[in-house]
């Protein structure tokens, strides 16, 4: 098997001089298939088995469950709006296929654009293809609304990778989190596509009673005949949004009319398990927590950031409970964790090692401040009832400052010791 694969690779290897770009591509795929046979030179003679590929791919593993659930939930929300198959598991094939049809292009576009830029720079700078985008590319589809137009997605990914990463020197050099940069680009450039009550449910003309559902030829001419041949239910092109349905997310409900309004639409259990509208990957809290635990147990993400972020958000939410000036502040502090994308931001966004603080003490401070600032934005900002994206980007900028003071403390300690002994 290995020999055949090697032979295949040998045969297709492009000429390095004639087509350097193709060779960079080839090299990327070759090192993907084989760990190269390079040996240590000078320094240590044996090396730990961990490399960046392995590190990054384990983050992707942690996201797999979210992909599965997210895709299904996209379909589920669509049918809930139409008043069909209200039970979570009924209409299983319809919901799953609907989600896959929606998510696949998003995933492909993200990777084609992102990896394209990455490959181009690898070729231009003459280094191997770095693995940074493996994680960013897996994260971006999960934090977008399901109906995001593909050209906006492409634009945002290009902006994030180009301006956010390559302009700073490539993987490991970026100041801001790439995935969040892509999202914040959409947020500021095309706000109507990523905020409000309309965008979190896919495939509807608009959210109003009687608005028709929208299906493409792939639903009607490819899958409907297949389902029919099995005798299963099919997509109904005549379906319309039911009376009284609003696509509002728990956060916007809570912001305008408090916890009562939230519970009149969604039960706490529903919010916790994730059968609610929202960005694709953020809704299911237990699955995110499983992913987070996986990252902590494998030592890939730092538990200090996660724990202190949880602490920061909880403290801030309790303070709001004490203050109680608005309806939103009066939401019991523990219910704040049932809404929005706190868990996803905590597990996968704040822990990005490149943009977080690098010192141990710094990580506690960094995480705590993200928690606190994010909660401030969520509760006080009237324009947009979620804070983690902005809080994390904000603290990304401050991370070097936090590290500076932690290191300065270490340097002062050393200086003091030298003075004491002199």
């Amino acid at each position: 098997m290995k020999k055949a694969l090697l032979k295949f690779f040998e045969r297709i290897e492009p000429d390095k001089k004639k087509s350097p770009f193709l060779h960079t591509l080839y090299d990327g795929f070759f090192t993907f298939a084989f760990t190269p046979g390079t040996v240590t030179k000078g320094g240590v003679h044996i090396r730990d088995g961990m490399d960046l590929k392995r590190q990054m791919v384990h983050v992707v593993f942690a996201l797999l469950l979210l992909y599965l659930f997210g895709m299904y939930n996209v379909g589920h929300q669509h049918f809930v709006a139409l008043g069909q198959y209200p039970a979570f598991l009924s209409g299983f094939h319809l919901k799953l296929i609907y989600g896959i049809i929606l998510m696949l292009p998003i995933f492909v576009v993200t990777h084609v654009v992102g990896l394209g830029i990455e490959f181009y720079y690898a070729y231009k700078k003459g280094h191997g293809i770095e693995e940074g985008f493996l994680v960013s590319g897996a994260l971006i589809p999960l934090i977008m609304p399901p109906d995001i137009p593909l050209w906006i997605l492409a634009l945002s990914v290009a902006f994030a990778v180009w301006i956010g990463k390559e302009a700073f020197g490539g993987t490991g050099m970026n100041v801001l989190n790439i995935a969040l940069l892509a999202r914040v680009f959409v947020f500021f450039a095309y706000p109507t596509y990523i905020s409000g009550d309309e965008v979190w449910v896919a495939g509807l003309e608009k959210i109003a009673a009687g608005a028709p559902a929208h299906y493409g030829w792939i639903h009607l001419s490819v899958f409907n005949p297949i389902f029919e041949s099995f005798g299963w239910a099919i997509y109904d092109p005549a379906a319309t949004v039911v009376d009284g349905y609003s696509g509002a997310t728990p956060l916007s409900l809570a912001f305008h009319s408090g916890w009562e309004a939230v519970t009149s639409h969604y039960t706490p259990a529903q919010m916790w398990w994730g059968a609610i509208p929202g960005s694709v990957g953020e809704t299911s809290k237990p699955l995110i927590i499983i992913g987070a635990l996986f990252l902590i147990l494998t030592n890939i993400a730092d538990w200090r950031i996660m724990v202190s972020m949880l602490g920061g958000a909880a403290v801030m939410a309790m303070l709001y409970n004490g203050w109680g000036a608005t309806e939103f502040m009066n939401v019991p502090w523990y219910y704040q964790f049932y809404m929005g994308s706190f868990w996803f931001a905590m597990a996968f966004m704040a822990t990005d090692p490149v943009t977080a603080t690098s010192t141990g003490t710094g990580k506690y401070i960094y995480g705590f401040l993200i928690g606190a600032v994010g909660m401030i934005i969520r509760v006080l900002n009237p324009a947009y009832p979620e804070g983690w994206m902005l809080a994390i980007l904000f603290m990304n900028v401050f991370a070097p400052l936090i590290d500076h003071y932690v290191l300065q403390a270490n340097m002062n300690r050393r200086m003091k010791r030298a003075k004491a002994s002199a």
Partner: protein
Amino acid sequence: MKNSASKAIITIVSMLTASAAWAQGTTGDSGGSSIVLYSLISVAVLVFFFIVVQVSDSLLVIESKQSGAAASGANFSLFPSWKELFAPRLPEYLQHKPMTILKRGHDILLVGEAAKVVDTGITAKTYAVQPVNFIGISPIPKMLVEEGAEVKAGDPLFQDKIRPEIQWVSPVSGEVIAINRGEKRAITSVVILADKEMKYRKLSSFDLEGGTREELVTYLLDAGAWPLIRQRPFDVMADTDEAPRDIFISTFDTAPLAPDLSFVVEGKEEAFQKGLDVLGKLTTGKVHLGLDGRGKQAPSKAFTEAKGVELHYFHGQHPVGNVGIQIHHTKPIGAGDKVWTLGVQEVIMLGRLFTEGRYNAERIIAVTGAELKEPKYVHTYMGAKVGDLIDGNLSNDHVRLISGDVLSGAKKTAEDFLDFHDDQLTVVEEGDDLTVFGWLLPSLNTPSISKTFPSAFLPKIKFRAETNTHGEKRAFVVTGTYEKVLPMDIHPQDLFKSILVGDFERMEGLGIYELIEEDVALCEFVCVSKQPIQHILREGLDMMREQS
């Protein structure tokens, strides 16, 4: 002052508690309220007494620290310490000993540990002294012998051009058969074909009691013993004109497959103690001995009962046996400090100058590694030829020979010679093979600190490590991995970055003086981005050395 303030606060608090309870008690009219009152008062009294006891107890502990009594490791508190209650019981030899427990670090367990037998049948034919082993000397030393010259063991071979008083002597008697030169005509090695029967240069005796430090230094320089001493910071040749602040010796080595120094020192206890006596005279401070506090068995008596030195026990994982880590936790090196370090076998050689009156370069080398038929200890002399030591012992010929351990040793061929300070030869397989989806596979034979390998759940597993890099070089991405294996109050990643940008102030501030290559070798091993950490550190050290 503080004490009286805290007393006042306690009194007020307890009065307030009592009065609040009283007020509650009087407003209530049922019989239950008096129970509440009394129980509150009794709790307040108990808390009060507890605080009094606690305060006086802390004062006792502070006092014992100030008087220096706590340095013996005994617990002066009234209460048993957390450690005493929950830590595993210390073995007999560690009771009431000053002990440093380090949590961070990582032991790499490899196959091929040397069997506890010393093979005296193996004799290397050629030996070499290699000027390239020393930092801080001129690359082209002044030769004192020519090719073809007959030398006795202890006869000078060459001297430093910058400090001509420092000279290197022959480890064996025989004929100088080659003076090899490398780049820019730097001398890489002076090779001696050894006699069957060793002849030694007789040294004049020296009165250790009566002689002054200057006389002792002159005597050691003449005997050729000066290169045995290494000086920190920078790991360079020791200064001849300045006494070190302290001298540190680690009596155990935690590197992969490292020799058991308690075994090596057997039968040489007298020479070891003599060496310590000599060192005691060379420093204005103290001689510190780092002892192994990990095992159930006490280390050799030569170490535990050494006289005229300060003993420190250490417990933890590699690199706890590195002298640099021990210095950091005993008396760290600050700017301007100079300390000396020696290995155990170097101390023994130093002692033999006085007990035997000759430069006796005999040493015991641990020949280790999974690719050997028979890993064992070998009795030979300093700078022995690598090929001679493993002759007929290899089970595989696609191997890498390493003078030293797999983390900080030097790559050698069979024609090369062991480095001056090394007491270990390691043989591992060359891993220049491609692995299909190697970055994904849960391999069982890859040493790692990562829990993404199943071996993380088999803590006793031993690896047949090979030299594959397991990935390509990348920019620094991951944070926090270096800290896990460097048990020092140092931020390694930021230090390395400050070296890369050449920021002197930061390098000094972040503690570059406290490190040499072997201390950060584990950082390089675990580096996810496959950065050449030891090389980076040495560049930084060179920059700092040029500055000073």
